């Protein structure tokens, strides 16, 4: 029953938001309906359509509340509310459910809200997680998170952030914002590692669930499909990412038999179909890169040349030093040492990367392969200074010792 309720939650909430015109009110109505479900479903059995059931109950309660308020205010309004009642629960419009949910997603990811507020709201309102669950997942104080959500909801109501699907001209930008929120949710789960605390919800799975929902809502939107594929490909490798002591295992050293093949297969179909639509975007390209990694049955058989090309394409879509570093690493793997080093040295002039560990590791590797030992040593030493993780420090110390001999 929990599963049914959770699955129905976002759609029921989105529809109630349309009915009553206000997010907080809609949440209260839904909460009330859920409480009723918890008593009546075990007794009468689960309804065929949980969303319709919850909306109907929530809507009745709303009409009830309206009428009561109206009676307090004046008699005339009570009569107006009878007309609401007449067109009441029976005209539950199924075709609008998906649009309602999209509207609500766009409200939660509205650019007038800070990114952290968008993330918190999406998890609370769309994924239906509790404040305590979200706070634990992000390792923040529940009171801080509660405040963040309350403030965001207040802004939605007070500044009148619209509840609608954006116009076509704004749509690409707004879809990007939604995709970014989902990607951030996934990344938070990914970088924190999963399963350490049994009570923590798995943010990676939540993000995938949200991305799947968008995939269905948007039909075939190439970047949304690219996002879903990217998340699936990264998630497929989750089990192989950590060793028995919980240490991080890099892609090269992972036991590839532990990768989740059905997820990889599903993702590859998504990327290929998305790319065929001829509207490439950053998520599709990143998914294509991840798919190439998954194609290799051994790290040495990775198609680094194609990966380097894809990073070049990605770099043209979003100029970003991290993308350039990744491209340099790929070039290094396929023997283009000089080009790799010149890319990395070019970055030093543009951006302050002195504090960025992967930069120094990549540069050290390029220099070492070009037999510039002294310079390589300096780069690796700088990387070791920046490293905080014991396994990485050990690894770098080993490399440094090799170079010194």
């Amino acid at each position, binding site marked *: 029953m929990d599963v049914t309720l959770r699955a129905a939650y976002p759609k029921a909430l989105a529809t109630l938001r349309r009915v009553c015109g206000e997010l907080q009110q809609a949440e209260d109505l839904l909460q009330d309906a859920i409480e009723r479900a918890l008593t009546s479903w075990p007794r009468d059995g689960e309804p065929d359509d949980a969303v319709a059931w919850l909306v109907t109950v929530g809507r009745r309660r709303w009409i009830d509340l309206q009428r009561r308020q109206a009676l307090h205010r004046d008699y005339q309004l009570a009569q107006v509310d009878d007309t609401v009642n007449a067109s009441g629960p029976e005209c539950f419009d199924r075709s609008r459910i998906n649009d309602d949910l999209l509207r609500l997603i766009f409200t939660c990811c509205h650019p*007038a809200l800070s990114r952290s507020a968008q993330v918190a709201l999406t998890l609370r309102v769309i994924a239906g997680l509790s404040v305590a669950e979200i706070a634990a997942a992000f390792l923040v104080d529940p009171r801080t998170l509660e405040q963040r959500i309350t403030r965001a909801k207040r802004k939605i109501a007070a*500044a009148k952030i619209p509840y609608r699907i954006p116009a076509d001209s704004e749509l690409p930008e707004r879809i990007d914002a939604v995709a970014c929120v989902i990607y951030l949710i996934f990344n938070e789960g990914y970088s924190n590692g999963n399963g350490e605390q049994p009570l923590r919800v798995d943010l990676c799975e939540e993000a995938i669930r949200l991305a799947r929902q968008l995939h269905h809502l948007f039909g075939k939107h190439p970047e949304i499909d690219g996002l879903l594929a990217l998340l699936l490909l990264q998630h497929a490798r989750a089990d192989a990412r950590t060793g028995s002591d919980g240490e991080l295992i890099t892609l090269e050293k992972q036991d590839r038999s532990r990768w989740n093949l059905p997820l990889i297969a599903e993702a590859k179909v998504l990327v290929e179909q998305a790319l065929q639509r001829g509207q490439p975007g950053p998520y599709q390209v990143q998914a294509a890169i991840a798919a190439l990694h998954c194609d290799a049955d051994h790290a040495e058989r990775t198609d680094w040349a194609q990966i380097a090309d894809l990073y070049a394409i990605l770099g043209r879509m979003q100029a970003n030093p991290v993308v350039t570093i990744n491209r340099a690493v790929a070039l290094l793997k396929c023997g283009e040492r000089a080009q790799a080093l010149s890319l990395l040295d070019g970055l030093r002039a543009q951006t302050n990367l002195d504090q960025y560990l992967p930069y120094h590791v990549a540069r050290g590797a390029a220099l070492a392969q070009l037999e510039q030992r002294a310079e390589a040593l300096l780069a690796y030493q700088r990387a070791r200074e920046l490293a905080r993780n014991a396994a990485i420090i050990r690894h770098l110390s080993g490399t440094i010792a090799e170079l010194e001999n």
Partner: protein
Amino acid sequence: MKYVILIYSSESYWENLSESEREAILADHGRMQEQMRADGAFLGAHRLMDTPTASTLVHRDGASELIDGPFAETKEQLGGFYLVECDDLDQAIGYARIISSDKGSIEIRPVMFSVD
């Protein structure tokens, strides 16, 4: 729903513009106002004089003191504002985007209530 569109920029920026650059900015404002009027959103526009003309009354420890200058010496100052009637925040942001070629920042703030 009423909103104010508050326009902040550095005063020296405006002073250092050429005549044609100023005209371009004013033309953007003209376009925005036209759009506002066409939508029935326009309630008023107010260009402020520069901050050296401002006086600030500061209350401290039960006494008040009049200070020559603006409330805060910041890099960008409030230069003017619009009052508009909109359906929602996106509509107000849409107007502000028309003049965003103007350097500086534009704050969009809902009005809690107005007294006429």
